[in-house]
């Protein structure tokens, strides 16, 4: 649950002052992340041109997609750096709660349809 940190007596978190994220990545780190993202995109596109089919095609693409997803969420949206606040749980839960829920629910929906293609 997302509440342990909230048990702290009131005001204990006042040193957070204005906001909650202490250290943000440096400009360089941002660039690194970006380059990684760009490389992944390039690999993805290339992969889609390899003429592979089925699992060989889809699985790596999905994996790369997920990595990109977490890179953006973690680095650019600072989820990673928010880990310090509340041990990172609150934002993570609000957002990933939504994602997990969506994935679970819609995966089940799919399983009840017939798939032919």
């Amino acid at each position, binding site marked *: 649950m997302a509440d342990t*940190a*909230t048990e702290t007596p*009131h005001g204990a*978190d*006042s040193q*957070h002052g204005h*906001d*909650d994220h202490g250290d*943000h990545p440096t*400009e360089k780190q*941002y*660039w690194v992340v*970006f380059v990684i*993202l*760009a490389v992944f*995109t*390039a690999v*993805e*596109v290339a*992969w*889609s*041109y390899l003429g592979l089919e089925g699992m060989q*095609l*889809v699985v790596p*693409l*999905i994996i*790369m*997609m997920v990595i*990109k*997803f977490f890179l*953006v*969420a973690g*680095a*650019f*949206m*600072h989820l990673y750096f928010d880990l310090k*606040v*509340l041990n990172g749980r*609150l*934002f993570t839960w*609000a*957002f*990933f*709660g*939504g*994602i997990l*829920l*969506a*994935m679970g*629910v*819609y995966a089940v*929906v*799919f399983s009840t*349809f017939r*798939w*032919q*293609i």
Partner: protein
Amino acid sequence: MTDTAAREMPLEPENELQDDVAVVDDHGSDIAGHDDHEGHHSSLGLSNMKLAMWLFLGSECLLFGALISTYLLSKARFLTELVALNPRVLDGLRDGGMPEELIQEFIAEGSVEPIFDIPFTSGSSFILLMSSLTMVFAHKAVSEGNYRNSRVWLAATALLGSTFMAGQVYEFTIFFREGLTYGGSLFGSGFFTLTGFHGAHVTGGIIMLLSLLVLSFRGKLQSNRAETVELVGLYWHFVDIVWVLIFTIVYLIP
């Protein structure tokens, strides 16, 4: 009644500027959480706005999840019927003016891949990805009080976003000319709805960015407002993330 009048009196801009509490917010949000100082402060040491934004994004996950699911289902059902040569599906495509070769290609490959222009979309995806980078720099610049840079980065982000949108509009017209209409097929409906929804989100983001830029030029975007920029940034990155999904799921996986 005089009281009411007093309440409605608009605030002097300078006054507002000094008061970092009465933050004017660019995307219609509210900040009353910040204003009653003697009483309320955040229980979690978080800003209300930021929490709210994350909650909103969490809810958007279900929105886009449903749209992506709908797209996948529509595409699959479309292809099933097409490959089975369902005459109504064929007619739908032909009525939209789709050339026969393209239809045959769809049928032969059992896939909608032939209509996509992967290199083009890869380019626009890359542009959108790049805008995320400029967005973080914009936020950084604002929080460091570097106003000149912040304007540059904000403008760059908005520009990249607009370029992406221009690409999407271009792509839509191409598809449309190739006979992929909104009403002509299940695939068309699914595709345009999903990407259109995303496009609408990007457009909303661009408007926010431009508003920030205007604020900045009017000298109202100072470091105490960094959070506003950060919020817009969160939204912007989210839209970017969604595109990461769409790009893979819609374009790369046939």
